[in-house]
């Protein structure tokens, strides 16, 4: 694997994403349409431009990020709530 590809983990899901990819794209490309939960229901990226806040993910280090406004990073781990 070359260094232009990153390994991403979403819960138990593991996949690779090229450098510079939007996190939301990588998730959706890997069929992860739902990134979180609200009011007991699954939620996922909707607006793609940082407005709706639906793609807010929690990273393993406890910080949060909007998947649509974040580029993938090596060993990114996202909690699957």
């Amino acid at each position, binding site marked *: 694997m070359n260094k232009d590809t990153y390994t991403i983990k979403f819960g138990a899901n593991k996949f690779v994403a090229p450098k510079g990819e*939007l996190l939301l794209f990588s998730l959706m490309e890997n069929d992860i349409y739902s990134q979180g939960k609200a009011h007991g229901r699954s939620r996922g990226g909707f607006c793609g431009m940082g407005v709706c806040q639906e793609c807010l993910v929690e990273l393993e280090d406890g910080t949060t990020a909007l998947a649509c406004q974040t580029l993938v990073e090596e060993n990114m781990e996202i909690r699957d709530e």
Partner: protein
Amino acid sequence: MNKDYDVVIIGAGFAGIKAALTLEKYNLSICVIDEGVLPGGQFIRYKKDGKNSSKVPTYNKGLDLVKEFTSSSITYLNKSDLIFINEEKEILVKLLDDSLKMIKPKSIIFATGAREIVQPFKGWDLPGVITTGAMQILLKTSGKTFSDEVVIAGSGILHYAAGATWLEKGGKIKSFYDVNSFSQKFKMLISALVSSDKRADFFAMLPNMMKIQKSAKNGIKVIEARGYKKLESVVLASVDSNGDVIEGSEFEEKTSLLAIGNGLVANLDVATMAGCETKYDENLGGLVLKTNHILQTTQKGIYAAGALTGIGGADKAELEGEICAYSVLLKQNIIDAHVYQELTDKLFEKRKKAISFGKTLSTMQKFNLKEIKNLNENTTICRCENIKMKDITNAIEFGLTSINSIKKKTRAGMGNCQGKTCSELVRAILLSHGHKDFHHIKTRAPLKPTSIDILAGEITFLDGSKV
């Protein structure tokens, strides 16, 4: 970075970049605050491999602007959230590294663009339902498609543009539905061709638009999204010439991805927090900022460019960005009225055409108020707080007639997105009941969800000096 700046520009889309580049030639200190990872706004998106090109001339023009901007000495704060702004033009911004900075510029240009609006339907909050804007952004950034079974639907023109990009990237469209009739779209086409600036873009997209048009089904809209945990199917129905659903015409189509869009609304949260007054004009896309003949808002020293003064696309944004730059120069006494007129005469002339195109766009994205009024009572209106249609109508029956009073009573607009997704819907519901509220939903700091640890941190000026 400086302590103070002559001009702060909020937003690095077409309008913001053009304003910055114009001002730079006059040796002013300029700071551009942008929430994007890279400059270009929602329209210009850098592809990850750097191989960016398009058949659309306006897009390529935008790429050139971004290149010029990136190689300039203008201070560019990317991935930065504006947390607070007041009428004294004091700006609090959270930078990429989570530090809080205060900026007090002499002049401000707002170029915060627009967001997409979607007419709600049952299940529109299911994962797999995305806006056509989101689809465009994902396509442009990655350069490839991400599903084999997309259904595209909506009104206006954005879903055509998204569909054309999808085909350009080699994707297949399962079905394409348009609320508007063919004759309404034909009117749009004529308007696009009359506006010379749009003609080249239009012809560049024509082959793929024709492909879509061939299989597009007109006069059909989405009335429900179904699925367990994520989208599994959509229910569609035919509408009559008034846009009302024809009973008995409903049908279901399986899909895991629905891209839907019903037009654009201006992002006014920052501007209204700074005290700029708004007005409502359907022909301009709904709520916009009041501006005078030099695009100054009702706040002295604050100017507005692009979607904030009316929906109209990239050309209008670029023209107004340049005009705003000259208006700043005029008011900071760097150029005189005579020079101002010489520099802006042609720009204002071109702007007329861009506005006329925008008006056609706005006509196609008008809400059907009868349909809004008759929305199923269990339809979600505020996605963040899970507020239903019945909660809103109950509040109206209770006697509330403004977005802000409904917000207080129901919590609609109090969630993470601060009403950006639902406030225009509440405005439309109010209108459908005969109540005209033409104020922006009240915004509170922090404008973007920000952790308390960050808010409790020290505030400094951009050069690191103490406030």
